[in-house]
């Protein structure tokens, strides 16, 4: 690899992180706005940046929408006094918020967020197209809980501690269901109909040209979505910070920018979680599923448009991802919080067995499909797989 390539990769990486963090930041704004709209309020509509807000009509609209709330919040977090309570374990206390943000950002490396074509061959827009994509994601994203547990421990009080312990128990339970819900997807994507036979997310998206998997595998999609809610500590699963019982949960002792880091980490986790869900079940950057009937161009109408098509594919991916974020927020203001034993019951007694049943069902089905349909119809597909 040339040093130019390395430099380019670094630039891409910085771009991706900046965009993701911005989206995460603006999700906070979206959360506040949508929450207020659902509750019959107007929400943040005062923060203004003089230059931009003075543009005649647009400026006023942006102020009303609360677009400038993010810089205001950011500045507040930066300049707020940051007390370090006397009873905390200083080193861990300072490390913990970073630890909760870093895994969320590392996962970005293997997320394909768009597609471009070289000589008619689809190439993913991704920082590193690892063969073990989804394993990497599962491995790294489960590290996020260390930040929470460490913060809870360092906080050195019982409320934060309970929050941390609950958080780890919940993560472990739902990680299991999540991992198992993904298996049918990869069985399907890597059957003889799929091409390369590995675990990259790019393959999964390519395999969804005919049918988005949410239609074909609604139950795994549902299990995955539920597990995602629990993993990202969103309501109705926000056990780690239940304000009613635990004051603030694991971040009771945190304030200022450290709390901000936790907050951004949580939202970055949400952004990336919904990105993965989009890739696995919603056909990634593809326009519409063809259902095997419509002509092929429906899946990627902009395939031949060069770099413009690539940009559109990224935009379309972000649109899908963001609608899922809106759904996250919408659910938050609809469902009440579960009790902790209910959370555990749903996780272990319903989701895990359901995911197991799904694996068995889809394994049998896909095996039968491959044996009796695909192999007979496309006997040469295995040879094509070898590059």
């Amino acid at each position, binding site marked *: 690899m040339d040093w130019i390539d390395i430099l380019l990769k670094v630039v891409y990486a910085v771009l991706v992180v900046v965009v993701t963090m911005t989206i995460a930041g603006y999700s906070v704004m979206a959360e506040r706005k949508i929450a207020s709209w*659902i509750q*019959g*309020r107007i929400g943040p509509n005062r923060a203004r940046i003089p230059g931009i807000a003075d543009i005649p009509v647009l400026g006023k609209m942006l102020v009303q929408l609360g677009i400038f709330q993010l810089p205001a919040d950011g500045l507040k977090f930066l300049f707020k006094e940051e007390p370090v309570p006397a009873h905390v374990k200083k080193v861990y206390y300072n490390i913990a918020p970073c630890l909760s943000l870093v895994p969320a950002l590392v996962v970005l490396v293997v997320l394909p967020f768009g597609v471009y074509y070289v000589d008619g061959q689809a190439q993913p827009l991704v920082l590193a197209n690892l063969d073990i994509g989804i394993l990497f994601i599962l491995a790294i994203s489960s590290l996020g809980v260390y930040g929470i547990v460490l913060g809870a421990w360092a906080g050195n009080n019982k409320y934060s501690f309970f929050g941390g312990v609950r958080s780890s128990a919940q993560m472990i339970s739902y990680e299991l269901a999540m991992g198992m819900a993904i298996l049918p997807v990869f069985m399907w994507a890597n059957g003889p109909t799929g091409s390369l036979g590995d675990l990259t997310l790019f393959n999964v998206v390519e395999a969804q040209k005919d049918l988005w998997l949410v239609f074909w595998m609604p139950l795994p999609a549902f299990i995955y979505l539920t597990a995602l809610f629990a993993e990202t500590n969103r309501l109705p699963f926000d056990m780690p910070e239940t304000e009613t019982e635990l004051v603030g949960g694991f971040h009771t002792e945190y304030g200022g920018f450290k709390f901000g880091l936790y907050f951004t980490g949580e939202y970055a986790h949400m952004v990336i979680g919904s990105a993965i869900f989009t890739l696995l079940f919603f056909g990634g950057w593809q326009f519409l599923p063809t259902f095997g009937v419509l002509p092929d161009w429906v899946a990627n109408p902009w395939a031949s448009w060069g770099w413009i098509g690539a940009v559109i594919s990224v935009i379309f991916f972000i649109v899908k991802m963001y609608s899922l974020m809106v759904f996250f927020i919408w*659910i938050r203001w609809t469902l009440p919080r579960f009790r902790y034993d209910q959370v555990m019951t749903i996780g272990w007694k319903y989701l895990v067995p359901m995911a197991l049943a799904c694996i068995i069902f889809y394994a049998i089905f896909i095996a039968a499909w491959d044996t009796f349909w695909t192999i007979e119809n496309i006997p040469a597909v295995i040879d094509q797989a070898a590059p």
Partner: protein
Amino acid sequence: MSKVVERKPLTFLEKTYLPQIIGGLKITLKNFFRPKVTLQYPEERPPIPVGYRGVPTLVRDPNGREKCVSCQLCEFVCPPKAIRITPGEIPEAETERAHVEKGPEDFEINMLRCIYCGMCEEVCPEEAIFLQDIYSVVGTSREEFVNHKDKLYELGGTLPDQHYKWDKKKTAEERAAAGGHH
């Protein structure tokens, strides 16, 4: 006669809670598009009901004269001891009020202590102190929250009233001096 309501066992679909969750989502979505009910506070003010107990103020009589005679009843009755009155004489120059016994030299109400109970208004024999509809008290220092006499009269203004105790006394005195009887 009690009516027994039979509780049906939940169907499978109901046990999954999914229809209920979808129903809930529908309701929140409907709320999403409803007109907003928020009051835009600094621009829009809420209507204040009659008899609202806001900031205590001093009022002048319809002739523009101070009504307070610094009897200190309000100071005495005030539960949190927010009122302090420095009694003073009526200045010689004010011939208009020469017949009134006393007037306050200074009258301070500490809004950091005031609990808006309205007992000062109740007890005032001159109807000089009123709790009016001002409800937002702001300031950046403790000193700003102590309302002195000028501020209190500025806030209070003049209220229509029928209480002309000192005028009546004056006319009575004048009549007596003229040899009449009362």
